[in-house]
C-alpha cells in the first residue's frame, strides 16, 4: 500500500484528468469509427421502404446496418434535413415536387450519375421515360432522384352506396351536396386535405390564391369539417367504409383503398373525378415518389446501391406490396416485373383504370400559400368540434 503515494485529493484530481483525457480521445475515436460508413445506410421514407420485406435481403447481401425511419408527411421530412439532419440520412423518399423545386435548389440532395441510372428509367412505364421531369433538376441537366411508387389520389367511395359513374361525374361536388351531410369521412392528411378543400371550393390548389378564394376556402373548410362523420387514419376510413358508417371519404386513392380491396372489399374503390378546377379541367391529383441521395458530407456508398437494388423486378414487386399500403410501381413497365403481379394484386391497386385515372389527374405540387391555408383549415377543424 506504501507505493500508493497519492493523497485522496490528488487521486480524485488525477482521475478526473484521466477521465477527461479518455473522453476526448474516446470522442475522437468514435468520430473516426463513424467516418467509415461503407456498412451503414440511413433512409428517411414513407412507409413501405422501411419494411423488413424490402430491407432484409439488402441487409443480407450487403452485410450492412440499414436503418429506415418512416414518416407520413413530406414537409416534416424536408424540415428534418433543413434542421441539420443531412449528416444523418443517406436517402430521402418524398413526393415528386420536393426534390426538383426545394431540396436540390437548397442543396439538401446531390445529383446522381445519369449514365449509370438513366437506363433504369428506360425500362419503366412509358410516362417515366428519360429524361423524366420530376427526376431532373430545373435545368434538365442533373438527375436528382429515382421514381418508383405512384398513384392517383383524390377520394374513395363505397360503390354499394355511390356508384363509380356517379362519383366520377359528380366529382368534388359530392361535398357540396347538403344531402351528404354526415355521410362522409376525412382521411387526415393535412396537405392533401388542403388540396381537396380547394377543389371542393372550385379552384386550383397549386397556385397563389386571391383574398376571395381564401374566403371561399375558409367557408368550405368549416362546412366540410362540420359535415364530416369521422376524421381519421387509413384504417379508420376503410373500417368506416366497410362497416357502413360512411359512404365515401375525401383524400384517398389506390394508396389508401388498396389494403381494403386486398382484403376482399371490392366495393371500396378509389375515384378520380372526370373534371375539376385544375389545369386542363382535370379533377384528380396524383403523386409520384422520388427517392434522392441526401447531400450528406459523409454519405454512405450504399445509397446508390440501394437505389439500384429496388429497381430489380422482384424487389420492385415487393416494394409495391410492402406492408401497409399497396401501390403501382413505375417498374411495372418492364414485362419481367409486371408478370410477378397476380390478378388479385392488380385488382387491389385498380390497375384496370390506372392509366385513365393518371391521365385525368394533375401531378402533386407545392401550394405557394400552404401555411396560410393549413392554419385556416386547422382552425376550421377546431371550430367544427362537437359537430
Amino acid at each position, binding site marked *: 500500500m506504501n507505493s500508493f503515494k497519492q493523497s485522496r485529493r490528488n487521486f480524485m484530481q488525477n482521475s478526473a484528468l484521466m477521465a477527461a483525457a479518455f473522453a476526448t480521445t474516446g470522442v475522437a475515436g468514435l468520430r473516426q469509427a463513424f467516418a467509415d460508413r461503407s456498412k451503414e445506410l440511413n433512409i428517411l421514407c414513407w412507409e413501405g421502404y422501411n419494411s423488413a420485406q424490402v430491407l432484409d435481403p439488402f441487409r443480407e447481401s450487403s452485410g450492412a446496418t440499414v436503418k429506415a425511419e418512416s414518416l407520413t408527411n413530406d414537409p416534416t421530412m424536408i424540415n428534418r434535413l433543413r434542421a441539420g439532419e443531412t449528416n444523418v440520412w443517406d436517402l430521402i423518399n418524398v413526393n415528386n415536387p420536393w426534390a426538383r423545386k426545394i431540396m436540390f435548389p437548397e442543396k439538401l440532395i446531390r445529383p446522381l450519375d445519369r449514365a449509370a441510372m438513366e437506363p433504369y428509367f428506360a425500362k419503366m412505364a412509358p410516362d417515366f421515360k428519360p429524361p423524366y421531369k420530376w427526376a431532373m433538376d430545373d435545368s434538365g441537366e442533373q438527375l436528382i432522384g429515382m421514381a418508383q411508387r405512384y398513384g392517383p389520389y383524390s377520394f374513395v367511395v363505397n360503390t354499394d352506396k355511390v356508384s363509380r359513374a356517379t362519383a366520377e361525374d359528380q366529382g368534388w361536388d359530392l361535398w357540396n351536396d347538403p344531402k351528404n351531410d354526415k355521410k362522409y369521412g376525412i382521411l387526415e392528411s393535412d396537405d392533401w386535405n388542403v388540396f381537396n378543400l380547394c377543389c371542393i371550393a372550385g379552384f386550383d390548389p397549386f397556385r397563389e390564391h386571391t383574398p376571395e378564394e381564401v374566403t371561399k376556402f375558409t367557408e368550405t373548410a368549416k362546412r366540410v369539417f362540420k359535415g364530416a362523420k369521422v376524421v381519421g387514419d387509413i384504417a379508420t376510413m376503410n373500417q368506416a367504409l366497410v362497416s*357502413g358508417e360512411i359512404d365515401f371519404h375525401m383524400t384517398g386513392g389506390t394508396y389508401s383503398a388498396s389494403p381494403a380491396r386486398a382484403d376482399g372489399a371490392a366495393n371500396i374503390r378509389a375515384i378520380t373525378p372526370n373534371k375539376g378546377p385544375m389545369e386542363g379541367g382535370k379533377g384528380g391529383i396524383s403523386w409520384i415518389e422520388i427517392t434522392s441521395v441526401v447531400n450528406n458530407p459523409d454519405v454512405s456508398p450504399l445509397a446508390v446501391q440501394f437505389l439500384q437494388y429496388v429497381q430489380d423486378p422482384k424487389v420492385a414487386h415487393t416494394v409495391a406490396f410492402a406492408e401497409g399500403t399497396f401501390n403501382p410501381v413505375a417498374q411495372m413497365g418492364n414485362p419481367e416485373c409486371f408478370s410477378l403481379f397476380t390478378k388479385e394484386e392488380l385488382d387491389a391497386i385498380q390497375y384496370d383504370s390506372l392509366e385513365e385515372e393518371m391521365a385525368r389527374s394533375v401531378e402533386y405540387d407545392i401550394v405557394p400559400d400552404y401555411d396560410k391555408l393549413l392554419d385556416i383549415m386547422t382552425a376550421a377543424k377546431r*371550430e367544427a368540434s362537437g359537430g
Partner: protein
Amino acid sequence: MTTLGKIFGPGTRHAVPLIVFLLIGFAAPLLAVIGFSFIPARTFELWQSWSLDNYIEIFNSTSYLSFLWSLGLAAITVLILAIICYPIAYGLARVFGKYSTLVTLLFTIPLFVSENVRLYGWVLFFIKNGVLLGTLKAWFGIEPDSWLFTSGIIVFGMVYVYLPFMLFPMTLGVSMVPDQTRDAAFDLGATRWQVFKEVELPLSMPGIMIGFLLSFVLAVGAIAEAKVLGGQQIIPISHDIEIAFTYAQNWPLGAALAVLLMLVVGTLVLFVLRRFDLDAILGRR
C-alpha cells in the same frame, strides 16, 4: 475547509449528481419548450429575437375552444368517475373481503394492454354492424344509430381509460377511515347518512383528492379517445399541440400552447391544493 465547502455542506455536495441529472433530464426540456414558445412562428432556431407573438396569435385565434373542450371533458370525466368509483372503492375497502384482490386484478389487468389497442377494441364493439349493433340487428332486427364518432363516446372512453387512476387512490382513502371512528359515530346515535357525511367522507378525503387530481391532470392531456372513438369530432388542446408540432411544423406555436396548458392546469391544481390543503388533511391522520 474552503469557502465553497463551508457554503455547501456534505449533503448538498452529494446531491450534486442528482441535481445535475434532474436539471438535464427534467428542467432542460421544459425550459426548451418555454424558450421555443417565444421564437418567431415556424422557425427552429432557439437563439434569436424573442417575442410574445405566438401567445398573441393564440389569444387572437379560436384555440380557447380546444382548451374549453379539454377542461370540460376532463371535468365531466372526473365527476362521472367520482360517482362510479366511490361505491367500488367502498366495496374494495370494506365489503368484498377476500374477493377484493380479484376485483382489483380485474381493474388492473387491462392496464397491461396499450390504451390505443383497448380503444380500437371499443371501436369494433360500437361500430355499425360491429359486436353491439350487429348483434342487435341479427337477434332483434333493430338498427339504432351508431354511437361511434360522437362526443358522448369520447366521455365513455375517458371514463374507461382513467378509471383505475381514480379508483385506487380513492380505495386507499376509504380504507384510511378507522372502524372505531365509524363505530363511535354510530354509538353516539349518528344516522347512516351522517356517518357518511361527517366521518367517512372527510376522513377519506386525501385519497379522493389525489384521485381527482390524478385523473383530471391525465384527462386534460387526453388525445387518443377523441381521435379513435370520437373520430376527431372534438379537437382537444393536446391534439392542437400535436398538429402544431407535426403537420403545421410550427414548433413555436405548439410550444406556446403547451406552456399555456401547463399554466392553466398548474393554476387549477394549485388552487385546488390550496383550497383543500392536502398536507393538512394528510397530517390530520
